[in-house]
């Protein structure tokens, strides 16, 4: 099947391109991109079997890459399967996901890698990349056979949510991986600080009487691992940085040339520990709403839904276990630093940290609940809140979902260049919707965002030229989408 995607706002960060135009996809590859100056003439004959998709008011971008998703298989099928997880990825606009090794058994040897690859080829809706464990069983005791794991296709190593407490072992892991020129993805937490924690240690944990982990537990581990990366020359990737101190540490390391990259999750960029208070949290006052589009004042309420344009933690009950996540939600000060880090490139990528959990694991006392947020399907809407608030620009945000992850993986960035694999996402940045976790295609319904209004919705995802997700009959109507965007304003302003 061939496609002509018409009248979208094309954003291709790898080519520093933002324009209104059309894209022709033939045989699973980008055939040609037509920008405003050379709009494709409607009378030109299309290749046989070409469907025209009207993307008016929407952004067309390279498909997103997720560095960090738990896909459940093998062994954790109550949480997720590769089929459900990759479908959720497609719903979220992702065309590549990196599968974390925290499965049962652990992806710590070639046989498990083969198994995951086989299931992914059979059931996967998007491209699946494999991340091998750093230590056998993720126990932090003995290194895995990294060379063999690399030979069977692992593109990075991680102990998935666990820090390696033994400093000597971490140094060996970095040194060994350096020879393979593959990144070691570190989850930075000193587990002895705040042992048994349920949330971030601070004013909220003090009020709620929940055991906390201090920001220092993350910061000192980031500092340690950076020192080891500097020492070994290895590529260190910091997963899910969540603290202001961590961002500062990474920024300083990058400035002196250490091979360090970092990612952050959508929830750490937008939510704080006050979400654990739920209805005990003070009601939010209207934040200033700087215009998304320069020169135009924006409304602060969406009349069609009667809901405020910002997130409201107080619709949750207190101690709602959906807010429990590792690393924990931090403070507004940390969120501010994370956004600044994302903006200036200290943080390379947005990674979902998708961690689906079963109902049984979540519907219990806060301190006993499994950490994790099912985030593939809400990532775009959540990070676009930063754009709508004027804290990030749209092109940069798309870059952190496309070019950034590719850079972390040492690959040439996903692009809409002619000849490129047609991994494409189309989203409407102004479409408002209300999160309903019951409608997630992921098996993990665990999200603190249930009932929240987000602005920005995936309309269509295409992986290797095949449509893996399409919202209703998107693009089929020749009359276009009723919710037309003012987005073209941004793009023409920028040019």
């Amino acid at each position: 099947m061939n496609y002509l995607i018409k009248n979208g706002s094309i954003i291709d960060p790898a080519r520093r391109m933002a324009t209104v135009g059309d894209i022709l996809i033939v045989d699973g590859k980008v055939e040609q991109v037509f920008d405003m100056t050379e709009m494709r003439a409607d009378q030109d004959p299309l290749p046989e079997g070409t469907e025209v998709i009207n993307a008016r008011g929407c952004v067309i971008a390279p498909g997103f890459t997720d560095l960090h998703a738990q896909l459940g298989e093998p062994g954790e099928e109550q949480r997720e399967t590769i089929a459900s997880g990759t479908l959720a990825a497609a719903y979220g606009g992702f065309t590549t996901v990196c599968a974390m090794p925290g499965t049962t058994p652990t992806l710590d040897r070639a046989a498990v890698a083969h198994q995951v690859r086989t299931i992914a080829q059979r059931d996967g809706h998007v491209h699946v990349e494999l991340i091998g464990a750093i230590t056998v069983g993720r126990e932090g005791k003995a290194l895995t056979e990294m060379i063999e794991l690399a030979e069977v296709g692992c593109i990075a190593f991680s102990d998935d949510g666990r820090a390696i407490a033994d400093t000597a072992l971490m140094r060996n892991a970095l040194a060994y991986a350096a020879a393979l020129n593959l990144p070691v993805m570190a989850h930075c937490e000193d587990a002895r600080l705040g042992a048994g924690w349920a949330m971030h240690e601070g004013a909220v944990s003090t009020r709620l009487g929940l055991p906390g982990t201090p920001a220092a537990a993350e910061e000192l581990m980031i500092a340690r691992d950076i020192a080891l990366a500097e020492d070994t020359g290895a590529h260190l990737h910091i997963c899910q940085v969540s603290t202001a101190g961590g961002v500062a540490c990474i920024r300083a390391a990058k400035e002196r040339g250490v091979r360090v990259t970092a990612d952050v999750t959508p929830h750490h960029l937008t939510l704080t520990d006050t979400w654990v208070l739920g209805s005990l949290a003070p009601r939010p006052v209207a934040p200033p709403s700087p215009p998304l589009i320069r020169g135009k004042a924006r409304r602060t309420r969406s009349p069609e839904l009667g809901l405020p344009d910002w997130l409201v933690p107080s619709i949750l009950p207190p101690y709602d276990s959906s807010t429990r996540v590792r690393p924990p939600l931090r403070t507004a000060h940390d969120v501010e630093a994370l956004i600044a880090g994302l903006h200036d490139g200290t943080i390379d990528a947005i990674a979902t940290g998708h961690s689906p959990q079963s109902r049984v694991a979540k519907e219990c006392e806060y301190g006993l609940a499994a950490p994790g947020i099912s985030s593939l399907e809400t990532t775009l809407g959540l990070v676009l809140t930063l754009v709508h608030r004027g804290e990030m620009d749209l092109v940069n945000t798309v870059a952190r979902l496309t070019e950034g992850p590719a850079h972390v993986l040492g690959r040439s960035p996903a692009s809409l260049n002619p000849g490129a694999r047609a991994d494409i996402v189309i989203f409407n940045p102004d479409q408002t919707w209300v999160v309903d976790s019951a409608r997630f295609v992921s098996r993990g319904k665990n999200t603190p965002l249930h009932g929240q209004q987000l602005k920005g919705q995936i309309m269509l995802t295409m992986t290797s030229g095949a449509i893996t997700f399409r919202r209703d009959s998107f693009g089929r109507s020749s009359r276009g989408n009723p919710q037309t965007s003012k987005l073209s304003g941004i793009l023409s302003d920028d040019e």
Partner: protein
Amino acid sequence: MTTDTRRRHMIDLDDVDAEEIEEILTTTESMKEVLSREIKQVPALRGRNVVNMFFEDSTRTRISFELAARALSANVVSFSARGSSVEKGESLIDTVRTLQSLGADVVVIRHSQSGAPYLVAHHFHGSVINAGDGRHAHPTQALLDLFTIRERLGQIRDIKVVIVGDIVHSRVARSDIWGLTRMGAHITLCAPPTLLGQSTYWLHTWPKLTISHDLDASIKGADVVMALRLQKERMQAGLLPSLREYTRVYGITPERLAQLGAHTLIMHPGPMNEGVEISPEAATAPNSVIEAQVTNGVAVRMALLYRLAG
């Protein structure tokens, strides 16, 4: 009071204002009068089912709630379930739904996990009373403390209260802070830094608190000194060098007792580690109201049961 405005749950004092606290304390006075009768029972809750769910050991609080419910003629069932069968929340929710089906009107819950009563309240159509959850809250203890203070000192507004001991792990301290703050008392928290956590964390929620690490300075001019139980596990966790040093610096020793004014109330939520956070001399001093606290506990719990389910 109409049913529309009536409180359904008592989980913490953070959503109870001064006026409502006054009302509860007034109701408590009536209940105390009932308990002074020869026949300590009124029919206020006849035909109502009260279930005490204790997921953590507590003989005294459980007995206090049982006696309170019986004095109001309620049907009372108590159970203690600690350990394996109810480790997981699915079981807690399941237990609550079962009690619901069995016709429970009020559930009293004691649980080791902070926030557990909110989970119960979310799945239960009746009333929930928090009998202590993790480090979070113990509102009936705070109310009986307020009642005892008012009974002895005649007022709560503007008095100076020193809470000393293992504050960071204490649900009693947190609920007392809410209650005393609402009633206009001045509160000093006194503890070694390892048993308090960062001052700014406390001041964020309660900006008027005074934080101190010096008990001798804190108790000058105090109207109430409340010592908290020190659990021996704190030593194993490396939070304290020794019991000896703790007692010397933060205990209500006979020497400190002598420094207190004759009318300074000595309080303790119990159970006490005599000789650790409080000396036997202080515990039995004429100005100690520790036994009155226990007595008043029954009346306060009657008042709450009555107001929630009566």
